[in-house]
């Protein structure tokens, strides 16, 4: 495998890692349930997607790439659904939002 490809995949890993760290920081530091959920689901989806791209560049066969993309799609959809579920529960339980940012709801 050429060095160029390795470098490209490395860049994607670093970018993916950045989003995971950012999401974790958001989970720990953001003030209320809704923004924490936003941080963790968005960042994990994007971070994981970037890692999948990085791995795809290194993959031996197209089959591996397809499997990884399918796994990513599954994580994407289940993460989004779980986020909605948690947010809905929090909303029903009147979990305080930092400010009433979701006034349109």
């Amino acid at each position, binding site marked *: 495998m050429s060095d160029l490809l390795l470098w490209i995949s490395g860049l994607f890993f670093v970018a993916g890692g950045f989003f995971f760290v950012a999401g974790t920081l958001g989970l720990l530091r953001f003030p209320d349930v809704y923004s924490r959920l936003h941080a963790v689901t968005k960042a994990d989806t994007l971070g994981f997607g970037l890692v999948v791209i990085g791995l795809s560049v290194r993959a031996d066969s197209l089959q591996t790439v397809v499997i990884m993309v399918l796994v990513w799609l*599954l994580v994407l*959809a*289940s993460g989004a*659904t779980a986020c*909605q*579920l948690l947010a*809905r529960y929090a909303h029903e339980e009147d979990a305080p939002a930092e400010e009433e940012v979701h006034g349109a709801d």
Partner: protein
Amino acid sequence: MALTDWVFDGVLGLLVVVLAVAVLYARTLYASIVLFIAFGLLLAVVWARLGAADLALAEAAIGAGLTGALLLAALAQTSTTPFAEQRSAHWTRQRWPATGLALLVGVLLVRSLVGLDRMAEPGLMDAVTQNMADAGVGHPVTAVLLNFRAWDTLLELVVLLLALLGVRQLATKPLVIAAPWALLEAWSRILAPLAVLVGGYLLWRGSNYPGGAFQSGALLAAAAVVLRLNHLLPPVRWSSWGVRILVLLGVAVFLTVAIFTHWLGAGWLNYPLPFNGLLILLIEIAATVSIATTLTLLVVGEPDEVRA
């Protein structure tokens, strides 16, 4: 081993221990259960790192997923206080004796681990490898579970059945299922067929690769639970004959094979050679169906209707 491996395994091991402590000392029972699920998933990764793919699958499906769901269901059934106020003074008083007992068991477990390296040397691995040709399946773990030590697996199925009968003796509250929600319903319509697909794959693949009845059954049960919680399945009750037949099928088929091999063949669960693969597949399919139904009943089973 590379440095990155050491770092990864070290962090993983540390996280497992930290999570184990966190499960015991979390403020609320609800938080404990969520941490327990995370603990189980990390434990599955540990098994995968050790090369024990069968155990990793079982731990993820049963240890983390299903036990987590069961604990949450039990919490919902028993609790009258809000989640935030649980973990009473009662527990605080029992905490130290419990810790002492856990430490004692821990010491005993570590002691038994010390000799394990030496014991494994002559080991049973050779015996298994030598007999693989007659096992009827290509994966050594499946060969042990369903052929060489099939008796153990039969007893495991009986234990599962007894657990279900035990739970039935407890008066359970009727299941309260939240009103359906379009997004979740749509997602479960995608998720359930996927779970059936993966469950079937695990069952079929179990003959030659990691996988098998328990992992597959847990996945199918998860699909059934998701569908039931979204009102896409009718209530599941022990009083229905169909459910009873499905629950008993695994033990029934296993015992029938055992009795016939004893009566006509070489002995209790010694399968006749040309049919061994077929018999194992038959037992595995029946066991999967029973495990799936039993686990579904344990999580979302409704109490029987009281007849006037």
